[in-house]
């Protein structure tokens, strides 16, 4: 039993699924469009809630998939299904026959420019959470030079009909608090504000992180969404928000504003997804067959989904799904 399983996407979900499938004696083949495995998580510095270095996790995962057949810088350009399974054509002109397909295509980061009022790409000192994470990794970002006041805006591109994303992106709250603490670690004298609508500390140890953020790091959490950003004469940012708990609008000057950008469905897979006949749900993510019992299966026999391609997910969620999709595939092959 050496059936091929085509895994599209070499991020956390793809790698973990491949690892498990290989252990089950199947032959996973990863097709990754970028030049390296690891996905978004490989770009991350530390993980919430315990500030665990992301590299540790990624390296372990990479090590597990070192013998898995992998196509980098490659995309699936065509895929057909017949009685013998799936026949995919890759951008490197290779052809792959597989018994099942796992879509682990993950997510895209919301384009912050779309929230024009925040002035991303227009005001120098507005940056995204992803760029801040880069700063933590490299220690370099011309926007950050010993800031005295830093603000975080939650739900940028999430819970917002104006950008047609009504869903909660799940991980941004915790990420914001994690990054707020990290900023305080780098600049202890800086004042750090987070502007939140609700703080959704959904996981184990997350609420503790919240408490730590308030008590040990003296981060000021303001309930209220930043509504407009402008630049003053010295290029500092002037922001307006309402402190909804106090019932009054606020105005303050910041040195840096960090936008907690939401997860959006990775659209680069849409064409293939259509060929496979996998629909999207109302949030624009992939539609799995059942929210509870069929979270890894789709309307299409033999096509499976795992990770953030179906909804915003944290790393533990994703790994959990990757493992469960492996079981699903295994059972499908041996049905």
């Amino acid at each position, binding site marked *: 039993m050496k059936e091929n399983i085509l895994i599209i996407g070499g991020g956390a979900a793809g790698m973990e699924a491949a690892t498990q499938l290989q252990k089950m004696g199947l032959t996973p083949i990863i097709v990754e469009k970028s030049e390296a495995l690891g996905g978004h998580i490989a770009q991350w510095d530390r993980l919430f809630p315990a500030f665990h270095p992301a590299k540790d996790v990624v390296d372990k995962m990479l090590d597990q998939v070192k013998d898995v057949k992998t196509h980098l810088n490659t995309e699936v350009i065509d895929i057909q299904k017949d009685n013998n399974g799936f026949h995919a054509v890759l951008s490197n002109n290779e052809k792959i026959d597989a018994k099942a397909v796992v879509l682990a295509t993950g997510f895209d980061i919301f384009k912050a420019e779309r929230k024009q009022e925040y002035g991303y790409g*227009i005001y*120098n000192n507005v940056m995204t959470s992803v760029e801040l994470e880069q700063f933590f990794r490299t220690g370099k970002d011309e926007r950050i030079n010993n800031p005295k006041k830093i603000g975080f805006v939650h739900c940028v591109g999430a819970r917002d009909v104006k950008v047609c994303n009504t869903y909660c992106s799940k991980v941004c709250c915790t990420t914001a608090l994690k990054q707020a603490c990290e900023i305080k670690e780098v600049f202890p004298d800086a004042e750090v504000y987070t502007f939140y609508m609700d703080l959704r500390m959904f996981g184990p140890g997350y609420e503790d992180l919240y408490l730590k953020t308030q008590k040990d790091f003296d981060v000021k959490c303001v309930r209220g969404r930043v509504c407009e950003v402008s630049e003053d004469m010295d290029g500092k940012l002037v922001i307006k928000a309402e402190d909804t708990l106090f019932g009054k609008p606020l105005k303050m000057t910041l040195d840096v504003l960090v936008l907690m950008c939401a997860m959006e469905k990775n659209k680069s897979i849409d064409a293939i997804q259509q060929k496979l006949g996998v629909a999207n749900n109302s949030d624009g993510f992939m539609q799995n067959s059942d929210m509870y019992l069929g979270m890894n299966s789709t309307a299409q026999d033999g096509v499976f989904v795992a990770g953030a391609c179906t909804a915003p997910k944290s790393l533990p969620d994703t790994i959990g799904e990757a493992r469960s999709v492996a079981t699903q595939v295994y059972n499908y092959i041996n049905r």
Partner: protein
Amino acid sequence: MIVEGKQKIWADYQKDIPDDHYFYVRSCIRQSFWPASEVTFLDIVRNKLGKDFYENAYHTTCGGIAYHSDSIPQETAMTIIARQFALMHESGYENYVCSCITSFGLYTETLETWHEFPELEAKIRQYLWDSCKKEFAKPKYLAHASDMIYKFRFDIAKQMKFPLVNVKTGKPLKVVEHIGCHYSKMFPSKGFGGAEYPHVLVGMVEAWGGEVIDYPERRQCCGFGFRQYFVQANRGYSESNTHKKFESMEPYEPDLIITNCPGCPYFLDRWQYVIAEQTGKTYGKNGYGIPALTYEEVAGLVMGYDPWDLGLQVHQVAIEPLLEKMGIHYDPKKKYQGVNGKDLGMPQCPMHIKSV
């Protein structure tokens, strides 16, 4: 400030406007506050740019003011608008250009509403027929007069006599651009440059050699806001809005303010006088205010029209310092002369803000 960022947005918010043959409707506020502006506009587009702008003698208000101060229902306003469209249709035009921002907003709102609720459009057709036996056709293109100047800004630049440059220093004039809220804040896609970083006025200023300043309260409303102004007790609220804007732009030392809504220049001009009377504070240099002009007036100035023909003397804030900066020659004696040199007499001078 990253200019490329703005340019990207400006590129995203463009609308195509036909090159000629427009049906022009006036603005209640503009023709009563700045009568010269519309005259100048028509003179520029017709005689300087040789475009066909048709005015129908029977056109009326759009009903916007009544509508926004809740004295008529939306259907009434829509019927009035339908009649305007009918006039355009009868006159054989399909490009509708209005001089008023309130109207522009209301026309846009109406067309969008009809688009979403065709049954309402049908209802209005019926109303129009019942009331004045007319039938209308929706305009193919709807534009605001400032869109026209924006579209022809480079042609105007070609005929420019006095660019927006300080002749003494040779530096570009610092200009505050202020769009009317109803230009694009309701329907960003309907205005050049959208709502956050509107380009319609920026385009003119830059084409004519000026430099636009971006100050924190640029989004703030001029303070008109209908209800806030019409009820005397609420005027303090209107004034406070304006005050907030001036406090925010003051440090940038702007030379003038350009606007595309007829109401904004009025409030940005008159409230400077009131603030000065109440607090003694003026925002221009040595006791003067900051001139708040309509885009037609600015266009007229750069094209070399006589300031007094442009009606700049009806501004509360003295215009002379700006004229001197731009090197425009003017005859102080003519400032208060009416047609055929009739002396209208010089108005009383305010306490705190210089008017000459």
